[in-house]
């Protein structure tokens, strides 16, 4: 029995009863649509977070006092650790050959003022040379901070575009004196915008040289370090070298845990994936129920179809159809039915995902494998739930079937 004919019969039946077909396929449509939608949103979020996670460039890991902390208890414990000093960072710069760049960093918050304009509580960061590489910053106006700025502890700063826009509406900021907290600083550059992450602006900051930061804003403070490894493959090596350097400096004997944290972008992604994984699992559960219900409805409609067409089955058998032929015909019809639902579901899911990214600013990314998954899944539902009605059809006695009114 050829597949094309079975599919043709199924499609003709679908067209003949549009409302019934729609209701029949609703479960499948919802199930597949939900899967595609959630997969798209999760995939979109993943890419978005991977792109923008903490605004760092690629192959960057960072060393700080705390590491990855998810509970308050962990924080209380980690808070007792020794601070990371600039000397530690220098030791890292000297002792990690697989790091191309090592940048010392410290963060606080301060009000940024220019005349009567105030940008409240912007992120004020001290950064060693090379910060533009690890933080993936490009300059828009003026220049970046330099090695000389750092060595001379110059009171200069680079502003993020949003911070600059708040206090310099329509004015060129470069060369102007601003107040950063209590200190006066000269704006030497403004960076290009990096956009938002989770609604949080990444462009509302002021960066000063790390030694300037050390001199004016903090006496005792835990710094941290960005390390950019020479390439992707060297990331684990750089991590291990950094660990060795710090453990040696702190005289940690083997067996004792690290009293500092090394964070790779992967570490963040793992945590993040755990969260989205929960959402994902929930939706897959809901989709599975929808598909189950959808499958049962398809089974029901196929049983009706087998009964309605008992005579046709009898005729086909009289003309030489084997059980296998009848079985395949009805399986193909069930699969065509649910496949149609799957295709509609995929379309609905994609449209919802596009709508979500358009209206709710959820970054949805429709991936091609998820489309195949959706279509394949619906096909599978059809074959699985169509099996019993098809089997029933194939077992019909030809004489009884021919006599059926």
């Amino acid at each position, binding site marked *: 029995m050829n597949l094309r004919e079975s599919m043709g019969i199924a499609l003709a039946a679908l067209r003949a009863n549009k409302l019934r077909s729609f209701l029949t396929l609703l479960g499948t449509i919802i199930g597949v649509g939900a899967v595609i939608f959630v997969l798209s949103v999760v995939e979109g979020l993943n890419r978005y977070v991977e792109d923008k996670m903490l605004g760092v460039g690629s192959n960057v890991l960072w060393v700080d006092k705390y590491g990855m902390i998810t509970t308050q208890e962990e924080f209380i414990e980690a808070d007792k650790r020794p601070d990371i000093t600039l000397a530690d960072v220098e030791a890292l710069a000297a002792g990690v050959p697989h790091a191309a760049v090592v940048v010392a960093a410290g963060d606080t918050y301060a009000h940024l003022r220019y005349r009567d304009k105030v940008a409240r509580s912007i992120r004020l960061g001290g950064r060693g040379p090379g910060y533009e590489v690890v933080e993936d910053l490009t300059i828009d106006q003026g220049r970046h901070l330099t090695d000389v700025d750092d060595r001379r502890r110059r009171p200069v700063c680079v502003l993020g575009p949003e911070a600059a826009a708040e206090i310099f509406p329509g004015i060129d900021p470069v060369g102007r004196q601003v107040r950063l907290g209590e200190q006066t600083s000269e704006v030497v550059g403004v960076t290009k915008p990096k956009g938002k992450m989770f609604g949080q602006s990444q462009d509302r900051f002021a960066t000063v040289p790390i030694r300037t930061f050390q001199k004016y804003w903090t006496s005792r403070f835990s710094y941290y370090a960005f390390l950019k490894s020479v390439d992707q493959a060297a990331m684990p090596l750089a991590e291990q070298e950094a660990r060795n350097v710090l453990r040696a400096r702190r005289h940690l004997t083997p067996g004792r845990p690290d009293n500092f944290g090394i964070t790779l972008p992967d570490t963040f992604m793992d945590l993040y994936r755990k969260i989205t994984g929960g959402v994902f699992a929930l939706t897959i559960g809901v989709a599975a129920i929808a598909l189950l219900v959808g499958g049962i409805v398809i089974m029901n409609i196929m049983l009706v179809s087998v009964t309605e067409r008992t005579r*046709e089955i009898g005729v086909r058998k009289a*003309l030489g159809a*084997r059980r296998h*032929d009848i079985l395949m015909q009805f399986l193909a019809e069930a699969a065509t039915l649910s496949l149609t639902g799957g295709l509609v579901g995929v379309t609905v899911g994609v449209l919802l995902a596009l709508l979500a990214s358009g209206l709710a600013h959820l970054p949805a990314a429709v991936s091609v494998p998820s489309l195949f998954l959706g279509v394949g899944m619906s096909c599978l539902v059809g074959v699985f739930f169509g099996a019993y009605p098809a089997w029933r059809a194939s077992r019909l006695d030809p004489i009884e079937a021919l006599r059926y009114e």
Partner: protein
Amino acid sequence: MLISIRDLQRVYEVGTEQVHALNGVSLDIAANEYLAIMGPSGSGKSTLMNILGCLDTPTGGSYRFKDREIAALPDDELARIRNREIGFVFQTFNLLPRADALHNVELPLVYAGCRHEERRRRAREALELVGLGDRMKHRPNELSGGQRQRVAIARALVNKPSIILADEPTGNLDTATGEEIMTAFGRIWEQGNTVILVTHEADIAAHAHRVVRMRDGHIESDLRGAGRTGAAAPAGA
């Protein structure tokens, strides 16, 4: 012998009772015979036809078709014989309502595993043979009763079977159309086919050259030349 039946039994279980639909039927049918099976309802003629058509299997006795014992064959092999060796014509035509005439005629070829182009070609030829060359794209509900039955005949012929098995082929047609269909069967016989009619109408059976009368599950009479020649002579004479 094309068909050789010996002491055929068919017992149905109806509740706790046993019904002997066929009770010791023996019959030989040679190639290119034109035979009618007659009898009142309940005589067992339909059961006999179902067994001859390999739609049903006997519960006892022997049915040899082309020297093969049919009684013991599995389902799929019976399906193959129905497909290759037997062309059915039913009282109610039994065409697929959603398919056009051409497609209906193609069906046996589909199950024979015929390629698409060849199917088309042979189905067209069969329809032209029954004079429906201009109705190929019509669905059954767009055809008259006589035309429908001719589509069914084309379908029965398309796979070049050994026998044409017609169950009350004129039962749903008016007399004139019925005559037309019987003329078609006559032509089919003339071309060398074996035709078996099942009917309870004497004037339809009169077209056949041999009439087998059944009653209560066995053969009551078997007369050659009962049809056109008018002179009744016992079979085998």
